[in-house]
C-alpha cells in the first residue's frame, strides 16, 4: 500500500484528505507542521507522496520541502497546497521542490488523478 504523508495544521483538512485517500486505498500519516513532518521521516519507513500545506506554524510548506529535498532518503513527489494563487507562489513552490501546486479548496475528483499520476499508477476501474 502506498504511503502518503498529509501535512496541514488544520485538523479538519487532515481528516478530509485522510478520508479521500484512504477510500482510494492509500495509507495516510498526518503531521501538523513541517517540523513534525520531518520528524515522521526519521521515525518510520519512507513515504511515497507528500501533500503539503503552505502556511503552517514552526516550519511552513516551503521550509519542509527544502529540508526534504536535501535529505539523503528515497525522494518522493510532493503536492503543495495553497490558498493563494499569485504566480510567484507557484514558482516558489516548484523551486522549493514541489512537483505540483494546487489551490484550495480541493475536490476529491481533482486530487485523486493527480496523486495517482504522480505515483505512476493507472486509474482504477
Amino acid at each position, binding site marked *: 500500500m502506498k504511503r502518503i504523508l498529509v501535512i496541514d*495544521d488544520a485538523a479538519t483538512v487532515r481528516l478530509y484528505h485522510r478520508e479521500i485517500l484512504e477510500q482510494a486505498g492509500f495509507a495516510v500519516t498526518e503531521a501538523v507542521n513541517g517540523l513534525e513532518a520531518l520528524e515522521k521521516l526519521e521515525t518510520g519507513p519512507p513515504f511515497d507522496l507528500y501533500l503539503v500545506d503552505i502556511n503552517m506554524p514552526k516550519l511552513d510548506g516551503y521550509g519542509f520541502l527544502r529540508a526534504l529535498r536535501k535529505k539523503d532518503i528515497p525522494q518522493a513527489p510532493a503536492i503543495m497546497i495553497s490558498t493563494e494563487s499569485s504566480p510567484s507562489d507557484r514558482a516558489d513552490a516548484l523551486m522549493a521542490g514541489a512537483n505540483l501546486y494546487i489551490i484550495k479548496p480541493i475536490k476529491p475528483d481533482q486530487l485523486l488523478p493527480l496523486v495517482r499520476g504522480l505515483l505512476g499508477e493507472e486509474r482504477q476501474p
Partner: protein
Amino acid sequence: MALKKGQPTPPSHSPGERQDARNLETLLQTLLDEDPSKRRWAARDLAEHPAATGALVSRLRRETDATVLQVIVTALGCLANDEAIRGLIDCLYSENAMLRNTAIEVLKELPDPVAPHMGELLHDADPDVRIFAVNVLESLRHPQVEAWLVEVILKDEHINVCATAVDLLGEVGGPQSRDALAALKQRFPEEPYIQFAADLALKRIGVE
C-alpha cells in the same frame, strides 16, 4: 578525568560576558550587535522593558537572522502592550512566511490585547490576512471566538476564509453556530470540503 562538580556558568568562558551591563541603554545597543547570539540575549532581556517595544518592533523589520527573529517575536509577546501587538499584527502582512507564522502563534496566546483588533483584521481587504486572523482565533481564549467565526462563515465571500473558520467551529462551536453552518452549506453547495467540514462541525455540536 572524572565527574566534577561544576558551576552554573564556567568562569573561564568568554571573559566579560556576564559582566555586561543589562540596563536599557546598553541592551538597546546590543540589539544591533553583529553577533546574533548577543542580539538574542538583548531581545530576551528587553522583554522586561516596555520602553524598548518600539526598538524591538523596528528591529523586527530589519532583522535577517531567523533565530533572532524568533526571540524578538517572543519578547513582543511577553511585553504584550498595544505597541507590541500592533508590531506583531504588522507581521501578518509580511512576505516572510516564517515571521508571519511565528507572529500568529504568539498572537493566539494573547486574547485580551488582541481582541480589540480582531474586528478590523477579519474585515481586511486581503483574504490571506483574514485567513491569518482566523488562524489566530484557533487557540485564543476569548469568549467572542465563536461569534467571530460565525460572522465569518455567514458573511465572508472568500471560500478559503470560510474553510479555515469552519475547521475551528468543529472545536469551539455550540448550538448557536448551527444555523450559520447550515447557511454556509447553502452558500457553497458545490464545494465538497465546505460540505464535509460543516457536516463534521454540526455532528460535533450534536443535538441537545
